[in-house]
């Protein structure tokens, strides 16, 4: 018996779904509005993407300014990386080991005004937490190459890192004269292993990395680099090494010209802001290496533009359209008295509401997703044509943005349907819909003023339906970079799925109250 009850319930729902779909599609104005909403998404994405023109200056002379974006290297996985440092390289043929003792790590921090190009003329002493110096093995000195490195850092102890994103911790504590650190990298085939030691005799393995397609001849050597501080000041680090030894092959001193000091990526065309130029000094098996830059994932400092950022305004416009459609889908039934016929035909009111949710949700999703799928490649094309830098987004992130745009529009339409069921009046529903679902998106810098906007905007994008726009966030964050991941720098405060969940909660509350009232009230 249960089966037949269930199947008749299902049958009733399917009939209601078909009825609601017929009502929805046969209002020509709504269909036109849906198509128009999609067009608005594409149009405004195009306009917004087209309005972005980047340029940079290689010196403070305005004549040196060119359009386009400075070079941002791509790492082995296609991700945007910073790869800017001083490297004193030595060839290593086949398997082998490089060992060194690092006795000091000091640095300088740019102390001049933020709008001036950093120079060594105005600095204060200091070493940033992610200043790095140590041993590095790489198949190529080209920026963005694969690598494995063991390093001492300014404030994060000894680290073994590979390919920009992988990180393992070694001995803690800063480098002091009294507490030097011994570092070692060993290559066995494609496996690189990092060791550290306090005395050069007892070695502790930190971790190992597998670099694929590693050629027989690789470069090993000493490096130093120092990233921009959290506050945005360029820095420089100097490390002193001794007991430097490469085994097998030429040990220090027996192969003249075996060591080659070079700047990797330090240049005016590189996006990374550096302080001073790298240098190195050698005496027997001791080296002093000075460098500036970073070997880490790139942050929005590289130009935080993504094609999906351009979707924002078009989506807001589409959301207003869908608020009106979602509202009218229920309020016109009340206005015309059609609701009584609807409930007479489908006495289970929950089924009617569910059918309406499915219909308006699918409509909203289709509009948002289809338009985003068309608009994103268009925006990418336009931005590339303008010479803008596009932060790389994998296929998964792109699909997530497209589906997320659809979900954002759909959920807002569903919420409007819920509010419309509660209020049964068009004007109040649309007023509430726009105030709750649209205004928080841009309340902040424009309305509240510049001072409080940072934190207020962050909270609005956490707890109001504006959180749903987190689905447009593509920029990766990294614990290996000290950087303000703020709204102003293009980072949404919530991850995409969490933002969508906040919006879901609003829609769910509206629907829950709507269902409760629908069952309780007279039609």
């Amino acid at each position, binding site marked *: 018996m249960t089966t037949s009850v269930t199947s008749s319930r299902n049958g009733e729902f399917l009939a209601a779904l078909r009825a609601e779909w017929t009502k929805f599609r046969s209002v020509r104005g709504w269909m036109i509005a849906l198509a128009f909403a999609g067009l608005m998404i594409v149009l405004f994405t195009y306009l*917004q993407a087209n309005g972005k023109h980047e340029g940079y200056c290689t010196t403070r002379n305005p004549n040196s300014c060119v359009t386009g974006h400075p070079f941002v290297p791509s790492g082995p996985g296609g991700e945007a990386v910073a790869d800017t440092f001083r490297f004193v390289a030595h060839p290593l043929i086949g398997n082998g080991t490089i060992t060194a003792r690092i006795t000091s790590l000091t640095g300088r921090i740019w102390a001049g005004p933020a709008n001036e190009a950093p120079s060594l003329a105005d600095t204060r002493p200091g070493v940033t937490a992610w200043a790095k110096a140590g041993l590095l093995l790489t198949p190529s000195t080209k920026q963005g190459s694969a690598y494995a490195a063991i390093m001492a850092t300014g404030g994060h102890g000894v680290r073994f890192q590979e390919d920009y994103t992988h990180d393992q911790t070694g001995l803690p504590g800063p480098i002091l004269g009294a507490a030097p650190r011994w570092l070692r990298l060993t290559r066995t085939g494609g496996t690189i292993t990092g060791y550290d030691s306090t005395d050069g005799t007892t070695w502790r393995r930190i971790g190992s990395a597998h670099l694929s397609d590693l050629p027989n001849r690789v470069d090993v050597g000493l490096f130093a680099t120092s990233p921009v501080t959290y506050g945005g000041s360029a820095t420089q680090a100097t490390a002193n090494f001794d007991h430097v030894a490469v085994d097998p092959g030429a040990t220090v001193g027996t192969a003249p010209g075996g060591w080659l000091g070079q700047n990797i990526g330090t240049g005016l065309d590189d996006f990374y802001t550096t302080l001073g130029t790298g240098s190195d000094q050698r005496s027997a098996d001791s080296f002093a290496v000075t460098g500036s830059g970073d070997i880490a994932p790139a942050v929005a400092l590289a130009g935080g533009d993504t094609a999906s950022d351009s979707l924002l*305004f078009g989506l807001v416009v589409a959301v207003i359209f869908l608020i009106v459609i979602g509202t009218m889908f229920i309020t016109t039934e009340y206005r015309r008295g059609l609701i009584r016929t609807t409930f007479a035909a489908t006495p289970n009111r929950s089924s009617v509401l569910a059918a309406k949710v499915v219909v308006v949700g699918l409509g909203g999703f289709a509009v948002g997703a289809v338009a985003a799928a068309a608009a994103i490649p268009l925006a990418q094309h336009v931005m590339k044509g303008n010479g803008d830098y596009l932060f790389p987004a994998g296929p998964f992130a792109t699909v997530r943005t497209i589906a997320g745009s659809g979900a954002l529009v759909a959920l807002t339409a569903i919420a409007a349907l819920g509010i419309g069921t509660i209020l049964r009046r*068009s004007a109040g529903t649309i*007023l509430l819909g*726009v105030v709750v679902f649209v*205004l928080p998106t841009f309340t902040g810098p*424009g309305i*509240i003023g*510049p*001072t409080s906007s940072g934190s207020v905007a962050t909270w609005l994008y956490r707890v109001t339906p504006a959180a749903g726009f987190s689905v447009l966030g593509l920029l990766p964050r990294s614990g290996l970079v000290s950087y303000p991941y703020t709204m102003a720098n293009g980072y949404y405060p919530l991850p995409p799925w969490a933002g969508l969940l906040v919006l879901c909660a609003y829609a769910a509350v509206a629907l829950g109250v709507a269902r409760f009232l629908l069952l309780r009230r007279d039609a």
Partner: protein
Amino acid sequence: MTDALRAEWTKLRTLTGTSWLLLAAVVVTVAASAAIAAATHVSPGGPGGDSQDPTKLALVGVDLGQAVVAVLAVLAISEEYATGMISVSLAAMPRRVVVLAAKAANITALTLIAATLATAGCLISGRLLLPSAGLDQAHGYALVSITHGPTLRAAVGSVLYLGLIALLSLGIATIARDTAVSTGIVLGLLYLPPLLAQLVTGSLRRHLEQIAPMSAGLAIQATRHTKTLPIPPWAGLGVLAAWAAGALLISGTALTIRDA
């Protein structure tokens, strides 16, 4: 005309929605202003530390309250279309423009009264709350006071602004004839251009802020750094007046030539 005014006044007065919406407009405006004033913390010497405009901040609730005013004005005409009352109105008063003018006069009068109360409430809340937000005399900010010329202009301007928003909304609703569609259009027209302006830069942004009804109209609230505004205060209110006049002109024509 007197009869038309009386007829429209009776219709408007006897709708339960009218008084509630007027009350809501006042409460929403003052509450939003008070909430934002309470949430503001200006750190002296911080970014934009001396560029705050206490009067504008005190009147910020108008940004939200205008939505309620817009809905009130939309409903005044769209509900007549929804119920079919419009046929009766036009049968009783065949000069259709007179009907529209009478509606406009009534709506504007009610809005101006509510707007005066709301603006006064905003200024009082700003005077009480803003000093504790860091906008006090110790940091070079005077108390919000109506005796201060630019503040008086901002207050009077805000009242007129809300009146013009009501006229613009009435015009749009007379053209669109549907509550939901008109509300969507009016709110979109008010709130979308400021958002778009934030996303574009340079002269495009400036032009957008000069012609958008909300951005231009609210220039009337600025009391400091008026030289750097995209549009001077009274000119900005003039832009909004032009929007309202345009909407009323088109709606008057449409009302005359269309079938009801």
